[in-house]
């Protein structure tokens, strides 16, 4: 069974600080996605990483896929209150390529 773990579970920081959240698994994924979810709403896709070692940047957000394709990180520079939300990583396998497994999420709160 493929499982994704995320850390930390909760994170509360001051506006302007940097942070990194992690997504780890013992399984290898064909791709990994990061989503952001607001309370009572559906997850919103932020990025997909496909190649081991890949780094993608989305404004102040930097996403990295581990070389072994088992882990990923999301780094936010100069966090803003608008970054507050639940950050979810999700991975797709090799054989069941359309069955995406979600991690439990990191709840981020950015205090003004």
């Amino acid at each position, binding site marked *: 069974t493929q499982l994704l773990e995320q850390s930390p579970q909760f994170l509360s920081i001051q506006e302007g600080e940097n942070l990194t959240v992690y997504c780890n698994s013992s399984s290898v994924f*064909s*791709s990994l*996605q990061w*989503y952001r*979810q607001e309370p*009572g*709403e*559906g*997850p*919103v*896709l932020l990025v*997909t990483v496909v190649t081991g070692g890949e780094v993608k940047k989305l404004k102040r957000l930097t996403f990295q896929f581990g070389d072994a394709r088992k882990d990923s990180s999301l780094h936010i520079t100069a966090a803003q209150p608008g970054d507050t939300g639940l950050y*979810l990583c*999700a991975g*797709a396998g090799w054989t*069941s*390529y*359309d*069955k*995406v*497994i*979600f*991690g*439990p*999420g990191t709840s981020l709160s950015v205090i003004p």
Partner: protein
Amino acid sequence: EPEVTQTPSHQVTQMGQEVILRCVPISNHLYFYWYRQILGQKVEFLVSFYNNEISEKSEIFDDQFSVERPDGSNFTLKIRSTKLEDSAMYFCASSGDLVHEQYFGPGTRLTVT
């Protein structure tokens, strides 16, 4: 910008009743999914649907659940006889050529009493 829509936004039903949750995926997408999220828990895969048939389903998706694409635009999830533990947010998602890039709808909150 195209988006996935879901109706109703909130459904309250009595235990044992049948419910149908409706979704309109993004129009040129080919892959369709249902997920659920019990309050405070993680998003769980239920089923994926491609080419008018189920391609993957999880152990949650038992005989009480079924999916259908009755026409060219709608994608439905039916729960035949609801149980209290079916209470959750149900999300529909769709994807196109990039299968793993799934776009989610706003969800239907199902409350079983």
